């Protein structure tokens, strides 16, 4: 397809989309409007299960099965990335030379590393109370670990980050979510039903039934997944070179 033809198709498609979208906008609920029937029901359901963060309640209680689907997409795409970025036969590993890091950068990164880690874990643990949860906290924990790459060098990072362990952690997080779902079945209600343990006291760490537990499994899976992803990308960008004979 020539560039010209492609631009024409794009223009027609974009104009068509713009026309339909503009026609649809006035029929959407008006921005800032007062009618949110699903939202109000979700708030009531969350309060009934004593979960202070309604968004966490929607994700891990009312729509827990959907979140399992989302998690599986995450798991599958990590798996796909690992398979695609494995080291092939005509490639070899060239260990990067040790880098010299300016002292202020090193100090700052190493000072920030524990702080960022704790913040990430806090965000995971308080997902049912305040904004946050497994998805956000997991990413924070995983990126925090990579401050070591900035503060020291790649080899230091490789020493504290055995990728195999994180791959297992990724799978264990996904598995634990399934096991918690099955616990609902064993307890005599439905898959992923929030009836296994008591709802606890409103607005304390142990509230919301299985919401904090599911949050933790998701946090573990996301953190491990991001570490594995970044490890594969760093390997490709820093270490793996093709055989020079090719």
């Amino acid at each position: 397809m020539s560039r010209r033809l492609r631009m024409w198709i794009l223009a027609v498609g974009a104009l068509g989309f713009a026309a339909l979208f503009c026609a649809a906008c006035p029929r959407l609920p008006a921005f800032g409007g007062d009618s949110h029937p699903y939202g109000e029901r979700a708030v009531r359901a969350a309060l009934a299960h004593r979960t202070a963060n309604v968004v966490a309640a929607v994700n891990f209680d009312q729509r827990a099965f959907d979140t399992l689907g989302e998690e599986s997409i995450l798991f599958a795409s990590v798996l796909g990335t690992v398979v695609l970025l494995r080291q092939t036969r005509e490639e070899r590993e060239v260990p990067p030379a040790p880098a010299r890091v300016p002292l202020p950068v090193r100090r700052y990164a190493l000072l920030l590393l524990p702080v960022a880690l704790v913040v990430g874990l806090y965000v995971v643990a308080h997902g049912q109370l305040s904004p946050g949860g497994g998805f956000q906290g997991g990413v924070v924990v995983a990126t925090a670990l990579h401050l070591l790459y900035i503060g020291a060098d790649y080899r230091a990072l490789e020493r504290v980050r055995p990728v195999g362990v994180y791959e297992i952690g990724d799978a264990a997080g996904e598995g634990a979510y399934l096991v918690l779902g099955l616990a609902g079945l064993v307890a005599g209600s439905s898959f992923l039903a929030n009836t296994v343990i008591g709802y606890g006291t409103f607005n304390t760490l142990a509230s919301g039934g299985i919401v904090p537990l599911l949050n933790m499994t998701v946090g573990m899976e996301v953190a491990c997944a991001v570490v594995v992803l970044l490890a594969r990308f760093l390997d490709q960008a820093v270490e793996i070179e093709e055989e020079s004979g090719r």
Partner: protein
Amino acid sequence: MTDTLLLISLCAVAATATAAVLVRDPARQALVLSVLGLALAVLFTVLQAPDVALSQLAVGSALTPLLILLSVRKVRRRGRREEDGR
């Protein structure tokens, strides 16, 4: 007051999104994308969605640009090696 704030953050998001598309060099695009992530996080906070803002902040302004930069580096290094070989 909220309306003004909302308009400003919406304009910031639209402007950075357009810039991210128009910047053709992927390494520079990664930087613009991280600014877009930041602008989106601000917009989501104004829209009273702190949960989404938090995840957008962690993902959009750190993780995605980092992944893009790493792949650019890998792809570039290949290109350079091939040109050396010729």
